[in-house]
């Protein structure tokens, strides 16, 4: 069912994600995260969801990760990099807690799929209806600016509040 290209991208992104966690250099970690995001955009593209893939590239790879890497470069983390030592107790503790949380999540997901696999209710948009309505981007834009436009505005207001809050906090510190 899965095409080999998707499997290859998934394996690469798993390798990059592991490298991201274990790399000592902050820029390497950030670039590996960028790689994971680009690979997942590739997977979205391969399953035919070009809109999601493109948005993933624009928002995460084009904007957010640029900010990450830019600030990491400006902060000059070389000192932390040389002094950083991995403590085995903390390391295995973190892995244990991560496995526990992952196990609980996967258990919930799998039991959900086992019980509701046959009687699941699909949304109004199948691939065919989206093609009839004129493509993903059109359907998404109409839904965003008609049905959900109040929630859209509220979310942008929340972002604005976050920006203003950050400016206020930073200003108090420097004055």
């Amino acid at each position, binding site marked *: 069912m899965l095409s080999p290209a998707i499997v290859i991208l998934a394996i690469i992104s798993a390798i990059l994600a592991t490298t991201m966690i274990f790399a000592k250099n902050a820029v390497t970690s950030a*670039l590996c995260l960028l790689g994971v995001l680009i690979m997942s955009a590739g997977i979205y593209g391969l399953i035919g969801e070009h809109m999601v893939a493109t948005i993933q590239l624009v928002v995460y790879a084009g904007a957010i990760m640029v900010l990450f890497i830019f600030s990491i470069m400006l902060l000059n983390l070389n000192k932390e990099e040389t002094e950083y030592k991995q403590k085995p107790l903390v390391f295995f503790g973190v892995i244990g807690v991560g496995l526990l949380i992952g196990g609980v999540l996967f258990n919930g997901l799998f039991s959900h799929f086992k019980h509701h696999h046959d009687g699941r209710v699909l949304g109004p948009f199948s691939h065919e209806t989206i093609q009839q309505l004129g493509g993903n981007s059109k359907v998404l834009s109409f839904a965003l600016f008609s049905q959900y436009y109040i929630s859209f505005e509220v979310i942008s207001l929340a972002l604005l509040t976050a920006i203003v809050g950050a400016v206020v906090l930073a200003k108090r510190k420097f004055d």
Partner: protein
Amino acid sequence: MELFDVAQLMAKIVFVVGLSLGVVPIMVWFERRGAAWMQRRVGPNRVGPFGLLQPLADVVKFIFKEDFTPGNANKFFYYMAPMVALIAPLCAMSVIPFGSTAIVNGHEITLQIATMDSGVIFILAFAGLEVYPIILAGWASKNKYAVLGSLRGASQIVSYEISMGLALLSMLIVYGTFNPHEMVSWQAAKYWGCVVNPFGALVFWISIFAETNRLPFDLPEGESELVAGYHLEYGAMKFALFFMAEYVAMIMASALIATLFFGGYGLLPGMSFLVNFISTNFGFGEVGMQNTKAAFEVLSLISKVAFFMFMFVWIRWTVPRFRFDQLMDLGWKILFPLSLINLVIVTLMVYVLNK
């Protein structure tokens, strides 16, 4: 996928990539000779007729230079940066349509590598990725001048992407679609985008100069201040990759502005007459006529791109370089408000006219 689909896809990829890389040596020659012509000098005229073989001599020089790597550079990212620089604009080329349809063996072929409904946003995504090679090159080569150049480059590209995006948004409102094919047919049916939205076209055009790091905005590599900026530590073919990437980005930007504002592959005035003339005189059928039309459409787009490439060279030798604070002022205090006001006006215009 059938064999024919794979073959036509490969043919389109080879055509677009080969054309955009093959134009680079010609552009390098034209950049030098054009510069000399505009400054009333002679320019390089020793190698071959009119100095046309000069790019070949450059390539030979680049290949036989020592492939030097600075000792404390971060090797992996140091080698990755020039590759990313060339790959990102080439990927963005894949959604630019270079013709309507051609008919081969009874199959209809869309003259565009990747047909997707979010076409223009895809170009914007890969234009956004063009920041990474600059940041990577500056950071990985561990040189103060290179880091300064990459900081300048990154902040310049991020700042001008905003006004570029807003100018693009105003055009999206006019066309009501992301699909470049539909944009071209809208312009063929009504007016060119630059007539409908002249300020948008102007802002977009100015922003493109900053996005491609061309003069008057080539501060990331300002020779008199930063030696060579972010690619200071790169020599031989690695530098050549950066050099090619700059020209491929220029070609991509020219094709984008031609598609959005200047009719794209739509036939230039007089060309439809030529298509009719040729297909009636040589007795082409309907298929032959469509193929002749497609050929002329490719020619139309290429001539528009050539015009904008010429403008890149012309402006380079006309306008003096900006200071960095002037560049930021232009981006944030003039172009950003201008494109925002323009967006509001275009929205109102579309609302009133469509009512």
